[in-house]
């Protein structure tokens, strides 16, 4: 405390901005954390939470803005500076070394003793044991981490961060995979740490837990600060209102298309391997079905199952009313189902191969005669797609790697349109591409719907979902928790469902308060 009697900020970020390849991830965000405070950070996928966290841990250097710790300006933050300032982060995906034991992993997080000092394993083991006990984790410190389950790894990650004796502790969705008892233990530890004067930044999509641990809450949206409030003064629906309302910067070229019969239907489908449970929905010809949900809700997993990449344990898939079997991607393609995967740089296009080779890769059979490639046919097909989709490329022989992101995505799309599908699954079709290319892809989706394709679009951007879909299926924890019509969908009710709340619950909490 300083003379004025207020708690001085332990960490102070002022006007932080950061852009990645032209996309503004943070815009003049200010944020502060007091010693002995739990400060919750909320926002949709892509709101800028991770980038903010990374500027604090030194993983990302902001373009503008300053970082102060204890009133001291940090000139060049980098991971080792942050570590020396005793800033630690627990990431959503545990970043542990799978082949080392729990003790070894925890020891790596402790204060280093110098490369040439002998490691006292006996002491390290005892420390690991004590840290695990503190959070009530029943894990043998001598187990190799890869043998642990996901929640167990999460607990080890937490123990490691505790052991580091941090002053600023960042927890990114620490409870995502924990059981109720483990969550209670974690909250107890968080309260202990708070009383010891540790500042904690707590990120969670489980809005109902925030009042239990947090003192203040800050909401981000589209990389900008929406506001910081004392936790006691906001309820769940306030929070959701703060999170949504992302600017709809682009006007969506949505066209009303006459819809045909039900083209594709899924009934009670379960895939244990992908963690998808009892999913049912249908898409009509000419319809765009938006698939909304948070990251990890099982949308990509659902798509992978529909495309035959994972076995179906229960339920059925119907195409034009007839049950079909899809055991591998080849069968999916032969039924006229196409899947343009997320992360095109990895699996959507092959960067080494030319535009033409990429666009014909799924239809090698139809451009060849008994295995002999017909280059004339290939060139004609590729050229027609380059023209139709407006792919900007020097030639169809140019490697796909030389194209911009948006044009790569069009090539990925061309590959699948070449199969003349009747059902098209698009996984984050406009992720990471510029606004112009985005609009072109959206226009193309409308054209395709007009031609009678049934389109399933996975997207993490609610404006895109709202702007492009005729109906919206919302997923949460591997299940479809709601199906909403275009006209009755709002950012608020979609996000509430994606967070696992029912609309009734929400109405209640808005009425009664937290």
């Amino acid at each position: 405390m300083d003379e004025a009697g207020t708690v001085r900020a332990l960490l102070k970020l002022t006007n932080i901005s950061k852009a990645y390849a032209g996309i503004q991830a943070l815009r003049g965000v200010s944020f502060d954390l007091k010693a002995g405070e739990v400060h919750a950070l909320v926002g949709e996928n892509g709101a800028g939470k991770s980038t903010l966290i990374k500027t604090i841990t030194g993983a990302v250097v902001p373009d503008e803005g300053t970082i102060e710790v204890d009133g001291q300006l940090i000139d060049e933050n980098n991971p080792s500076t942050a570590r020396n300032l005793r800033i630690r982060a627990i990431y959503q995906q545990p970043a542990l070394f799978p082949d080392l034991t729990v003790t070894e992993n925890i020891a790596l997080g402790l204060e280093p003793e110098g490369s040439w000092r002998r490691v006292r394993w006996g002491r390290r083991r005892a420390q690991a044991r004590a840290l695990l006990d503190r959070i009530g984790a029943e894990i043998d410190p001598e187990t190799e981490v890869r043998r642990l389950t996901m929640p167990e790894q999460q607990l080890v990650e937490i123990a490691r961060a505790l052991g580091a004796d941090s002053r600023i502790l960042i927890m990114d969705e620490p409870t995502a995979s924990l059981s109720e008892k483990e969550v209670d233990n974690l909250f107890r530890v968080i309260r202990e740490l708070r009383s010891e004067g540790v500042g904690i930044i707590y990120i969670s999509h489980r809005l109902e837990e925030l009042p239990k641990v947090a003192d203040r809450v800050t909401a981000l949206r589209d990389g900008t600060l929406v506001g910081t409030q004392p936790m006691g003064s906001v309820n769940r629906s306030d929070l959701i209102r703060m999170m949504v309302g992302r600017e709809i910067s682009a006007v969506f070229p949505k066209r009303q298309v006459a819809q045909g019969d039900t083209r594709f239907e899924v009934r009670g489908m379960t895939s244990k391997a992908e963690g998808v449970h009892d999913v049912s929905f249908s898409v009509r010809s000419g319809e765009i079905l938006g698939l909304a949900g948070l990251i990890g809700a099982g949308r990509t997993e659902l798509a992978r199952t529909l495309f035959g990449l994972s076995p179906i344990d229960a339920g059925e898939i119907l195409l034009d009313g007839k049950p079909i079997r899809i055991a591998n991607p080849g069968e999916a393609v032969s039924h006229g189902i196409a899947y343009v995967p997320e992360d095109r740089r990895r699996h959507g296009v092959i960067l080494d191969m030319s535009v033409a080779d990429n666009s014909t890769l799924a239809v090698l059979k139809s451009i060849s005669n008994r295995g002999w490639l017909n280059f004339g046919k290939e060139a004609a097909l590729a050229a027609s797609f380059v023209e139709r989709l407006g792919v900007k490329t020097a030639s169809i022989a140019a490697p796909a790697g030389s194209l911009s992101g948006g044009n790569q995505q069009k090539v990925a799309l061309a590959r699948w349109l070449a199969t003349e599908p009747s059902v098209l699954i698009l996984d984050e079709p406009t992720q990471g591409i510029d606004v112009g290319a985005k609009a072109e892809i959206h226009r193309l989706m409308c054209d395709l719907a007009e031609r009678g394709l049934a389109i399933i679009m996975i997207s993490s951007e609610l404006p895109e979902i709202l702007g492009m879909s005729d109906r919206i299926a919302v997923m949460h924890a591997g299940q479809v928790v709601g199906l909403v019509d275009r006209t009755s969908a709002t950012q608020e009710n979609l996000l509430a469902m994606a967070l696992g709340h029912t609309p009734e619950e929400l109405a209640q909490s808005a009425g009664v308060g937290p």
Partner: protein
Amino acid sequence: MSRPGSGWNRHLREWSVALAYLVLLVLLAFLAPAFYKPDYLRGLLVSKSTVLIAAVGMTLVIVARQIDISVGSQFSVCGVIAGLLAQSGLPMPLVALGTVLAGSLMGACNGVLVALLGLPSIVVTLATMAIFRETLRWWREGEFVFGLPANFQWFGLGQQTGQWAIVAVAGVVFCVAAWSLRNLAGGRAVYAVGSDQEAARLAGLKPQAVVFAIFVGMGAMVGLASLLNAVQFGVVDPNSGVGLELQVIAAAVVGGTAISGGRGTLIGTLIGVALLGTIGPALVFLGFEPQWEKAVQGLIILAAVASDAVGGRKR
């Protein structure tokens, strides 16, 4: 055109290795014209023909992002089998067929382990290299195969005709393979699988089938190469394949095949075989001690890999 690796830039490696080879040939023409004796050149051509055939198979294996270091052992086994089949009085076409089949079978063993069980090819073929070699040793106890029929050596065609026959077979195999890799849907699949197996799977291709077929093909090529090698001698040496894997992997890499898969051409491999095959004799003709051969070959390989790394960084 839309063939894999088209465009002048993408053939930079092939051009530069070809240029290096040309420089070597010109140097020899001025400094050691004795190199250009027809008999000598023909002998060199014949001995590198067998390497070329194996290198063709290896190029496919590496383009598909695999490796096969058991080819030397396969080669030794196939040579002995060719000799024994001939010794037993089978007609030559059947001897040839049997030898190629034996190679394919060994390739299939690797293929099953790598493609179906998903084991890493470097470990699998390291193991099968030892297994094939030791099985041969246990079976034959290092014995040469003697008493071969008259129609075995040079296919009974006499030395000169036989030599040209070997070169012709290698030429045909090379041309067919190079043409197929560019013009068959299967060839395209090899590049796709080597570039990004998951992307290839998502595109509806069958990566496992492709990888299996490539290992079988590798075995068949080794069988053929071994047969063409065996017929050059009056007896079959059970150690004929020792060191072959290094020669063929080196030729492919020097010729521009990326060890990380997805890139490479057979033309490049041809030039690689030529350069590495000529450099040794060339050194001798230019007056260096023969023991420099391996060191210079090593330098060439390093230079090739280093140019990849530097070129890769630029992009």
